């Protein structure tokens, strides 16, 4: 009978019920989409920001020493190997060109296949860690005598795409493209590492390597570790080590490559964390605003319902119903609306997250099914929060005046 009362009152005023459902629906759709974004924004945005450069520089621990290129695959064997998006060794030097003049070359990986356990078909090189490089022409093949000429160098020398250069007096190299990086590479002739090693007579060696890793924002723990790692307690050390801070990844790289020193490129690394943190805060604020707005909407609708049903409430009071008991009817009613709105909102939020993910990150955001009960609970919370204030009015409603149809 009570269920019946709730059901009847629920669908007796379809306009108001629809409004309540819609309010909760809009809020939960927005909130679940924002939630999906908040959760994935960390990874996705870090990935995006990675397009502005590598965040760890590997150098020989001793000045004048070199990195052994045979060791480099170990970069993908550390604890956080899955967070290593890629790396590229660097070997610089000068060679003579056709015209007899000197030319500065940089040997590196462009898109070098590398056998890595658990990641089939792993490629690494500038194509992965420097996605902002603009190539007029084509990327060189790492296995062939091909090169990119930095834009300013090419302009000075009048080099064109497709031209063949002769380096060091005897080595023909095809210019597959002209490179615009906005950095020092614009002055360099960028060649496959193996070719540079051969031309410079330094087989198996590299000066340094750039590493691009997905990291989490720095916080107090990582700052403490950066200041003095020995000051960490054993427990703190474990937490730090098992968190993808740029500093802990750098530390693990040093462990894997004993002759190397890993230096976080703080500018990039730090701003990444800060930006992600700020975006997440923004999303959180938007979520709270949506929640509050929806609760206020439900409050207004419930207040209307109570006003409209004053006679019924007065009657229930006259029949000795406890105010609490009557409030329960209204709470149950908005809960039903909230569950319906929340369920619809989950679905719409899922679509919205897919769409937003596609536009923002070029990939649909996954929405974990585990969020469904969470969002439903949130929907009910919104509704109950909204209904709470007006429902308190029930206690103050005097049955005497309503019931006897005065005047």
């Amino acid at each position, binding site marked *: 009978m009570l269920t019946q009362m709730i059901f009847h*009152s629920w669908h007796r005023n379809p306009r108001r019920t629809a409004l309540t459902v819609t309010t909760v629906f809009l809020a939960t759709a927005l909130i679940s989409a924002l939630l999906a974004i908040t959760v994935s924004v960390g990874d996705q945005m870090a990935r995006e920001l990675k397009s502005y450069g590598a965040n760890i520089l590997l150098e020989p621990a001793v000045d004048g020493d070199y990195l052994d290129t045979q060791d480099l695959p170990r970069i993908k064997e550390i604890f956080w190997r899955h967070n290593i998006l890629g790396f590229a060794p660097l070997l610089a030097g000068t060679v003579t060109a056709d015209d007899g003049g000197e030319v500065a070359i940089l040997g590196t990986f462009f898109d070098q296949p590398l056998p890595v356990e658990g990641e089939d078909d792993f490629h690494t090189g500038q194509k992965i860690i420097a996605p902002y490089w603009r190539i007029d022409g084509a990327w060189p093949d790492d296995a062939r005598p091909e090169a990119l000429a930095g834009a300013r160098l090419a302009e000075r020398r009048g080099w064109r795409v497709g031209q063949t250069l002769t380096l060091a007096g005897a080595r023909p190299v095809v210019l597959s493209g002209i490179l615009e990086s906005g950095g020092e590479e614009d002055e360099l002739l960028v060649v496959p590492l193996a070719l540079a090693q051969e031309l410079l007579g330094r087989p198996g060696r590299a000066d340094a390597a750039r590493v691009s890793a997905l990291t989490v924002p720095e916080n107090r723990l990582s700052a403490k570790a950066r200041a003095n790692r020995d000051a960490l307690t054993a427990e703190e050390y474990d937490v730090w080590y098992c968190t993808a801070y740029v500093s802990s990844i750098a530390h693990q790289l040093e462990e894997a490559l004993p002759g190397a020193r890993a230096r976080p490129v703080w500018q990039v690394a730090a701003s990444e964390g800060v930006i992600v943190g700020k975006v997440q805060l923004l999303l959180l604020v938007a979520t709270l605003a949506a929640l509050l707005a929806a609760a206020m909407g439900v409050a207004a609708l419930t207040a209307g319902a109570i006003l409209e049903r004053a006679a019924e409430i007065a009657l229930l009071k006259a*029949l000795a119903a406890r105010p609490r008991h009557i409030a329960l009817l209204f709470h149950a009613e908005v809960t039903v609306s909230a569950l319906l709105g929340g369920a619809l909102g989950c679905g719409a939020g899922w679509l919205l997250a897919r769409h937003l993910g596609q536009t923002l990150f070029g990939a649909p955001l996954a929405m974990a099914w585990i969020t469904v009960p969470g969002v439903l609970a949130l929907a009910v919370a919104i509704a109950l929060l909204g209904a709470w204030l007006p429902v308190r009015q029930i206690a103050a409603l*005097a049955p*005497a005046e309503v*019931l006897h149809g005065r005047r």
Partner: protein
Amino acid sequence: MNIIETHNLTKSFGSVIAVNDLTISVRRGEFVAFMGASGSGKTTLLNILACLDTFTSGEVFIDGHNLAALDEEGRRVLRANKIGLVFQQFHLIPYLTALENVMLAQHFHSVTDEPAARQILGDVGLAHRLHHRPGALSGGEQQRVCIARALVNEPPILFADEPTGNLDEENECNILALLQDLHRRGRTVVLVTHNPDLAARADRIIRLHHGKVFEP
């Protein structure tokens, strides 16, 4: 033994004194009619006696309980156990059937008891109307549902404020016969009316005028 007693009861709404220094009593099992012109304070008095409203000064005892000493919750409990209410406008829940309307009173009082609710509706002559909604019932039938609802928890006192105000003469007669029957079976009945013919059926008439007892 008085089941209702007031001593110098006063209720004012701002400057309007609706009940003015009123001292009355009703014996257990008595059938009393409150009579008076519109605006004489009948409804206000009834609301106070039925624990639906507070008063400004004086004392009220319902079955020995001092109302002034009770808070809202105390009045609610007293109302649940002692008082049945019959309204001029019936106040039935439109989307519940006659039977459900009666069971609603049981629910808020204690627990629902469908056989008892059927029985009481049968007693007021509605055995064939249990599953009709108020909209499908005549005014007289609706008022009988309202009486059944007032009686289902077996309160010792029944308050009826102009119960026939919205009914035709035939139904008025039926309802009054029902109230008289309840009185014969031992209930205290307080009937509010401005109709002298109805009031004449009561054991005693208390006439109100401007909130005071009026002795002609």
